[in-house]
């Protein structure tokens, strides 16, 4: 922002080029995420056929111009399945990250702002973080049963503590600042303090964490569905497609290689975006070339 403000004589186009050069990560990441979101939204127009249309005559066909990613054991077009799978995988990622923002955010806010609550709340969060994410998610899925709603719940519980930690630490920093003290002195109530002063100023690390949790959730859904404890197999998601393809790994490698690129593309895009935003927000790096 300061860079742009300092150079008012440049045209908009040149400013855009300069921004793109400095913030390559953000630009490339946004591009990658946007394309996959567009693919998901316009799936019926992008996909050449229905994701569940059987064509037993053309089963296990390698990639060709008629079937871009090849076909599976039931003759279904893998490209169409990946395109429709984007809808489910992105929806899971978005819902999980949103739930983490709300639940983890609320916990972090309470722990950071009301000191007596800090100990008990954060110990609960630590408890959830004291075993590997995937194990907690598997355990929750075993309890809840495999379904689309349950995978969102399981992954949200798994990743919410991360958000709580980030929100807590940024609230802890902000609440000690002079302007919060000033607002308190002027008689602002807690709700106003939080809404007007603390939350807006603690926002940037939270946005960064949000993109990372979005990425983790997509990886998490894929892993759980791949293990067969996630989304039911009839719903095409990137995880279920890879799980089905695994059986034919010796005969039809395209079933596992190509759909994986969809996950890689999306998660890489989200990570580039998150890293880029963090660099932009970091006052130490601001104004320097982004590396």
């Amino acid at each position, binding site marked *: 922002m300061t860079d742009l403000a300092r150079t008012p004589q440049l045209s908009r186009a040149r400013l855009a080029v300069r921004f793109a050069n400095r913030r390559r990560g953000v630009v490339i990441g946004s591009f990658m995420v946007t394309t996959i979101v567009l693919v998901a939204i316009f799936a019926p127009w992008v996909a050449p056929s229905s994701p569940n249309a059987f064509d037993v005559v053309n089963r296990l066909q390698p990639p060709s111009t008629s079937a871009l990613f090849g076909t599976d054991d039931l003759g279904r077009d893998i490209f169409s399945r990946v395109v429709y799978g984007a809808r489910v995988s992105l929806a899971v990622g978005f819902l999980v990250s949103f739930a983490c923002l709300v639940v983890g955010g609320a916990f972090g806010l309470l722990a950071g702002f009301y000191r007596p609550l800090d100990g008990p709340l954060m110990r609960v969060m630590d408890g*959830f973080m*004291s075993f*590997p994410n995937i194990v907690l998610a598997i355990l929750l899925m075993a309890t809840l049963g495999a379904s689309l709603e349950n995978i969102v719940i399981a992954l949200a519980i798994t990743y919410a503590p991360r958000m709580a930690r980030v929100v807590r630490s940024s609230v802890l920093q902000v609440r000690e600042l002079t302007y919060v003290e000033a607002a308190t002195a002027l008689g602002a109530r807690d709700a106003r303090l939080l809404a007007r002063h603390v939350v807006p100023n603690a926002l940037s690390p939270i946005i960064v964490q949000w993109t990372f949790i979005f990425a983790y959730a997509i990886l998490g859904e894929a*892993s759980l569905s*791949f293990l067969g404890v996630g989304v039911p197999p009839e719903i095409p998601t990137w995880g279920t497609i890879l799980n089905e393809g695994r059986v034919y790994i010796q005969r039809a490698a395209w079933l596992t290689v190509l759909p*994986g690129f969809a996950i890689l593309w999306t998660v890489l895009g989200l990570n580039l975006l998150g890293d880029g935003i963090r660099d932009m927000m970091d006052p130490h790096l601001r104004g320097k070339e982004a*590396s």
Partner: protein
Amino acid sequence: MTAFLARRLLAAVPVVLVVGVTVFVLINLAPGDPVQVMLGPDARPEQVERMRQNLGLDQPLPVQFGIWFSRALVGDLGESIFLRQPVTTAILSRLEPTLLLTFGAVFVAVAIGVTAGLVSGLKRGSWADQFFMFLALLGVSIPEFWLALNLVILFGVELRWLPVAGYVTIAEGGLWEAFRHVILAALAVGFIQSALIARMTRSSIIEVMSLDYVRTAHAKGLGRAKVILKHALRNALIPIVTVIGLVFALSLGGAIVVEIVFSIPGVGRLLIESVGRRDYPVIQGVVLYIALAYVLANLLVDMTYAVIDPRIRYD
């Protein structure tokens, strides 16, 4: 050091207790009756009732938990419903491949991560830095199991260098043969985890290289290699070791997914199979074991601090 160890081990008890309660409550909330699963849909009600009594499942939940946890503390995790053997035996018999895989993965992660981070940090902004940091970004973005599947296709199916599935125990085929069966899995998990180590090593080295004592070491005429290895790296090690501890724990989790890809009969596969069979005692036991491994890994990291940095003492 002994007092510190005792204190830390005592502090681990509540953590394990919290994990134990969480697991126990979650498992008991799960729909589906394990006895019904065991006996099949045709079982008579009195058969089901007798089995429930035998397994202690007719007791109130807190009582069941009390019995389970007090036995777990002395290493008795109960009997597997499906395997008809003690849970501890089931876990121990699957431990070898998982441990071999985890240590292999940590070795790969440290070798790639520290090298990449060191080169990146010392040659900041160079093409090597950009290359390694892109590799690290790939590492945090690739799904472990997909990387594993690609390794299977490349080294197992196409080149036929390494076995693609299964495991041969050290007792059956010797250490090398056992290791051959987990190399690809360890590479997959290790590469993913090396990303964390590379990033941490890079930032840690960049910070240390700008400090006064490094300039002094240069000024007194020490060779570059000596400055880097004896002065910079050693002081940059604390955050790196912390991440390595985390990587150990993450590898343990990553091993679960990758064991399925390679059909390695380890603890992870036992967990997934038990979820499918609703074999509750085994699920509880495996999760408790993993939580314990997590706690021990962290303890090991804390003890390593004192070895790296003599200023840190645990008296």
